């Protein structure tokens, strides 16, 4: 048993490293940007409500850190954790490492739902509801196309996701084409691009209200996901009926993805790449894979967002950054999977 192959990386060390990475990313991202804030000022601004420290920072620094960057980073972190968690869960219950919120069509369904709501009803609460319904409809459509049997079940699931995504994408294109350029179009396009730039504390509240409980359910069911990943028939011979478990898990996944799309537009690749990276290091056991994916996903999206807003004068949509980083990593994973299959 080679050391690299062993999934038993020393656990304490590993979790400490992941948490430290998250904290370091948060602090560094609060400090970095067009308006740089010294790191110790960031730390004292954050500590001020709890500890009694003399304010040595400028009011502008406090505004930038507390009102502008903190909600934005917390949103990115929460969205990243949620997406990576969803990816890990979907990959587990569909027994397929190529599945993520985006490949399975949930993200594009959510986008279509949001666009429809904007077009017919306007912004605000209708968007959140439309996004959730769209996510569920897309998931149901993918599951209806994919029957889960036969030797190419892995492939048909991904292809069904491609088909549903393409269909939703076409309808979103149609919606932007007919949208009123005076009143609806600018807001619609801005929302579709996906960004944390418009982050506010109320948006963060909506995201947290959906992501934290649903994420808690996913994490609590992480042992059950191990069982579901063996397949329905095997789960049933072990005395568990998987249908309701899967329904709960998929509902929670839809809620998390929908909340993320509602506040920041569709962001791809996080849910696909992060769980696969964690699986390489930790092995497939979802008891470790799920919390690790959430931690790493949060760090990753915070970092991606920081790059998105500080690389150029104008902001790059964060989805572009995640795609630029995510696609090569995923291509590498694909090659690895292909060569592993060739050996078997």
């Amino acid at each position: 048993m080679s050391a690299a192959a062993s999934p038993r990386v020393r656990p304490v060390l590993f979790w400490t490293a992941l948490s430290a990475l998250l904290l370091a990313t948060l602090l560094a991202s609060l400090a970095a940007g067009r308006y740089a804030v010294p790191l110790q000022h960031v730390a004292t601004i954050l500590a001020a409500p709890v500890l009694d420290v003399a304010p040595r920072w400028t009011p502008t620094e406090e505004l930038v850190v507390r009102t502008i960057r903190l909600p934005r980073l917390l949103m990115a972190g929460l969205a990243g954790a949620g997406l990576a968690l969803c990816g890990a869960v979907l990959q587990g219950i569909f027994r397929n490492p190529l599945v993520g919120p985006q490949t399975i069509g949930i993200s594009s369904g959510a986008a279509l739902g949001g666009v429809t709501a904007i077009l017919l009803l306007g912004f605000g609460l209708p968007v959140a509801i439309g996004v959730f319904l769209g996510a569920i409809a897309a998931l149901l459509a993918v599951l209806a196309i994919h029957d889960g049997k036969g030797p190419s079940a892995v492939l048909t699931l991904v292809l069904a996701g491609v088909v549903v995504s393409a269909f939703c994408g076409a309808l979103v294109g149609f919606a932007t084409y007919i949208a009123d350029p005076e009143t609806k179009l600018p807001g619609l396009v801005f929302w579709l691009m996906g960004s944390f730039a418009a982050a506010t504390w109320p948006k963060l509240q909506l995201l947290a209200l959906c992501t934290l409980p649903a994420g808690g359910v996913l994490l609590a069911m992480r042992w059950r996901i191990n069982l579901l990943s063996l397949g329905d028939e095997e789960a049933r011979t072990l005395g568990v009926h998987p249908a309701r478990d899967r329904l709960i898990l998929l509902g929670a996944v839809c809620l998390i993805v929908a909340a993320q799309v509602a506040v920041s537009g569709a962001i791809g690749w996080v849910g696909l790449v992060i769980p696969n990276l964690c699986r390489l290091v930790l092995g497939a056991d979802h008891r470790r894979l799920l919390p690790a994916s959430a931690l790493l996903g949060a760090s990753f999206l915070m970092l991606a967002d920081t790059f998105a807003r500080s690389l150029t004068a104008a902001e790059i949509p964060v989805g572009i950054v995640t795609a630029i980083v995510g696609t090569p990593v995923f291509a590498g994973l694909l090659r690895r999977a292909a060569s592993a299959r060739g050996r078997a």
Partner: protein
Amino acid sequence: MIAAEAAGHWYRPGQWLFRDLSFRVRPGGILAVLGPNGRGKTTLLRGICGTLRLREGRLRLGGPVGYVPQAQQADIGYLAIDMVLLGRSRFLGRFDAPRATDLARAEACLDEVGLTAIAGQRYDRLSGGQRQLVLLARALATDCTAMVLDEPASALDLANQGIMLRLLQRLALERGLAILFTTHDPDHALGIADQTLLMLDAGAHVVGPTGEAVTEDSLARLYAVPVHRMAWRKDGEHGETVVPLHGLRGGRAAGPVRPRAAPPGRAPPASRHR
């Protein structure tokens, strides 16, 4: 206990895989199921496990049934001990994780099949024989009173076949499990089974004490090849074995070589293939 009363099933109307099938495996008893591919062996097992509803008849079970599938699925990256732990799922709620008592039980089950040493190794890196034994340990971890195994020895080499058969014999004897297993090798039935079921074509079958059911006539009908059953004794061990007469070395061939008729109703491909 596993008891079938007039059990029957078909996938295509009118093409019975088996019908009027009745048997009873008492605690500590072993029933071997012989039959060519596509005769409904796995279907019968799925019926007993409750993952398939048989079209006819009744199955009575004395308690939970442990199912040991064929160890084909080799892409599971869990540790062997975690695989066995999954057998405890029946006792765990939706939001529970296995407790220390579950871990102790899983370790005991892994020990029972003699694999304590590989507990920390990944399932997908084990040999076929080890995987089969891990799945057996997982079934034991469900605290079952009966166990059904789908060709537990078919993918194993001679030594591992012996390990598997001795283990089944011991589990029946010491733990009082009622065991039902399918096999392609009549010697496995003659070796450890006190009853044998032969699934003949067109839904017919023979079932009874192994010595009476596994005869030269019934095997010849089952496999469409003449066989010779004979007793052997060596170093204090004795038994009976079956030799197929293929007409390979000087013997008179059984007749012109003709392909066997296709089985009446083929089971749809299992969903576990990827």
